[in-house]
């Protein structure tokens, strides 16, 4: 999907370590390690990906590991290999069997 038009996308390959804050207009796909903050429209953390810090996006799909904070305004999916800890804000959530979840969950629109 992203390969066709990579404008506004961030790809972090396996073995790459990035430190800092990242504003991504479209897709952020993380297979390496990111220390810091990521804000993107769509975030994909691949199975080898690790985020130490904050993660914000509309759609968030986690196969790897995220520590500290996640905010997802549309959909948050934690896959079976995913590990999530810290504070989590979501509007729609799905956790596949086997996913790790450790922390506090908040629904952004609890009355819908």
């Amino acid at each position: 999907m992203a390969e066709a038009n990579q404008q506004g996308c961030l790809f972090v390959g396996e073995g790459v370590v990035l430190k800092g804050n990242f504003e991504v207009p479209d897709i952020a796909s993380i297979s390496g390690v990111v220390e810091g903050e990521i804000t993107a429209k769509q975030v994909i953390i691949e199975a080898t990906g690790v985020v130490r810090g904050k993660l914000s996006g509309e759609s968030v799909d986690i196969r790897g590991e995220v520590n500290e904070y996640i905010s997802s305004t549309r959909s948050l999916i934690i896959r079976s290999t995913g590990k999530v800890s810290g504070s989590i804000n979501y509007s729609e959530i799905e956790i596949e069997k086997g996913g790790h979840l450790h922390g506090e969950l908040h629904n952004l629109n609890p009355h819908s």
Partner: protein
Amino acid sequence: MSIFSKNSNSQNNPEQDMQEQPDNFSQSNVPEEVDFEPAEQNFRSEAPVRSSINSKPSILSEGFVFEGTIVSDGVLNISGTVRGTVTAKSVLIDSTGQVDGELNTENLVIKGNLKGDVNCDDLNVGPLAHVSGNINYKYIHIQRGGKISGKFNKN
């Protein structure tokens, strides 16, 4: 037990009955003592096995309101309302079901509402469920759309 008593009787003192076995044991020689220990351990570990697994679920129907403590070794289906503490091997909270309080179970399926502290092994939250509280689990599965909030802790 019967195997053991036959052993000791034949080797030592045929007239002794089961109540006198401690004496028999102290008199016996060393190899027999080694035989004695596992025999008694086996007996003890088999003793508490009870056939308490009930295949029929206990059902709290829609409109039923229960306040207090529920304890069950079997399956519990909740379509009504429970306020209090629930302990069961397996619990299903149906779409009309509501539980306010503490819930301890191995297998938990939530289609309805749950507020309170949960200790479970296997947690399955359906798409229309509302769950809030402190949740301790071993395995979790949340279907898309399930509303959950609170502290989650993987054991």
